[in-house]
């Protein structure tokens, strides 16, 4: 079962089988991360360019490590120090990348749809590392992978996603990914942080966190994007933390073995209290490790050869 597209632009268009293939491949990649020598030669001679139009340390580092573990050469272009500040357009940059002979471009861009535009202009694989408030597919895939590893399945689980849904590309990708894999998704947050058009999505909407969290198998907290909170979308941080913050008492309403997740970086004491973030139910650090495995899987599947099928090494 191959990936249909040579790009990873979002989970909205991916099938359940394709998502399953990425997660299965990631499980094999995670085994490599447990070895003393974390390197395999699968992508030797390939070039991966990380093109980041927005600041990001963890996603960029994660992609960079993933490429290096697979023996690909990776190059980082941070646009603050590149020709973009001299006025080069994304399409001109695409022409340059093509001339440089990149096999994959990992793009983080503040505008939704930028990776889709780039994908039309380059010959190589394009991987969306976050486009505006649209999608962040590898983050969602690592969340799915983490849940599946911990719970053994995704089908039938109840996942509550709480916080700034409107500005969150992580939430959007997770809604598609989780619902395709058979999980029930509950969204929770103040009305001002809910995106329009929710009724078209396969989710339940809540404003009361205590009701939303009841019996949930996974509690996924989103980062409150403080830089976007100048517009008065809620009265105060204190009130937000009281109504939508995750603390130990609230967590006790979820299933006893519920997982606590957060894409990071955490605003401690705002969306999640320190004791819960560091508690036994938290898988926040594992999400980071799994991020490398999932990105290795994505790079391998998109750059590592032809279409994709079960073949046997026998007889060679």
């Amino acid at each position: 079962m191959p990936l249909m597209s040579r790009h990873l632009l979002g989970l909205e268009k991916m099938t359940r089988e394709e998502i399953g293939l990425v997660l299965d491949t990631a499980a094999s990649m995670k085994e490599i991360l447990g070895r003393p020598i974390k390197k395999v030669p699968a992508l030797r001679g390939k070039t991966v360019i990380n093109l980041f139009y927005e600041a990001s340390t963890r996603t960029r580092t994660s992609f960079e490590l993933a490429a290096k573990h697979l023996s690909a050469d990776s190059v980082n272009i941070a646009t603050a120090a590149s020709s973009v500040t001299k006025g080069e357009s994304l399409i001109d940059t695409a022409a340059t990348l093509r001339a440089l002979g990149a096999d994959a471009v990992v793009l983080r861009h503040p505008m939704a749809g930028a990776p889709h535009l780039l994908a039309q202009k380059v010959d190589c694989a394009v991987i969306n590392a976050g486009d505006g408030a649209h999608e962040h597919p590898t983050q969602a895939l690592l969340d799915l992978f983490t849940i599946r590893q911990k719970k053994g399945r995704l089908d039938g689980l109840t996942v509550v996603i709480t916080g700034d849904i409107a500005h969150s590309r992580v939430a959007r990708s997770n809604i598609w990914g989780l619902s395709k894999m058979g999980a029930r998704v509950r969204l929770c947050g103040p009305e001002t942080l809910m995106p329009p058009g929710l009724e078209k999505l396969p989710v339940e909407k809540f404003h009361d966190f205590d009701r939303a969290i009841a019996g949930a198998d996974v509690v996924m907290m989103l980062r409150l994007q403080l830089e976007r909170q100048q517009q008065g979308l809620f009265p105060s941080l204190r009130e937000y933390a009281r109504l939508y913050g995750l603390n130990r008492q609230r967590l006790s309403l979820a299933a006893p073995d519920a997982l606590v997740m957060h894409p990071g970086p955490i605003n401690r004491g705002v969306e999640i209290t320190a004791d819960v973030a560091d508690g036994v139910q938290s898988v926040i650090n594992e999400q980071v490790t799994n991020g490398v495995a999932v990105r290795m899987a994505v790079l391998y599947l998109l750059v590592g050869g032809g279409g994709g099928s079960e073949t046997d090494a026998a007889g060679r």
Partner: protein
Amino acid sequence: MDKEAIRRAITRIAHEIIERNKGTADLVLIGIRRRGVPLARRLAGRIREIEGREVPVGILDITLYRDDLSTLATQPVVHSTEVPFPIDGKKVVLVDDVIFTGRTVRAALDALVDLGRPRLIQLAVLVDRGHRELPIRPDYVGKNVPTSSREVVAVNLAEIDGQDIVQIMEMPG
């Protein structure tokens, strides 16, 4: 080869492994996915019957070590390598069903040295069909089968294919 011939070949290889290594001390078997894995398990079973001692069995997936990824029309699915014991200082017997060009074994050797530093590595195969492209020679061979390059050696094992049989077939097309 039929079921009996395969059984006898495995018994003989098991004896040869024990004899050459003077017992089972520090011995580990590692099967190359896919059909090397049941063969390695059967060898371990036979060695246990003969020597009364358990030999650890690991699984090696060499997909990420293939040197022909870019020339393949279809991309192989990656499976896990499962070697849950250290191989440093061990005598490793690599097990596969067929040796042909030797490229699979070369990839397996690369994969093995990334897992640790074995004391020595030996190679056991059920069928050697010739046509080597690399200077690699198995230490233990179930059966030498001279083939033409247009032929395919199909190994079927009960664990994967429901029956034990080795056949030479003309390549389709």
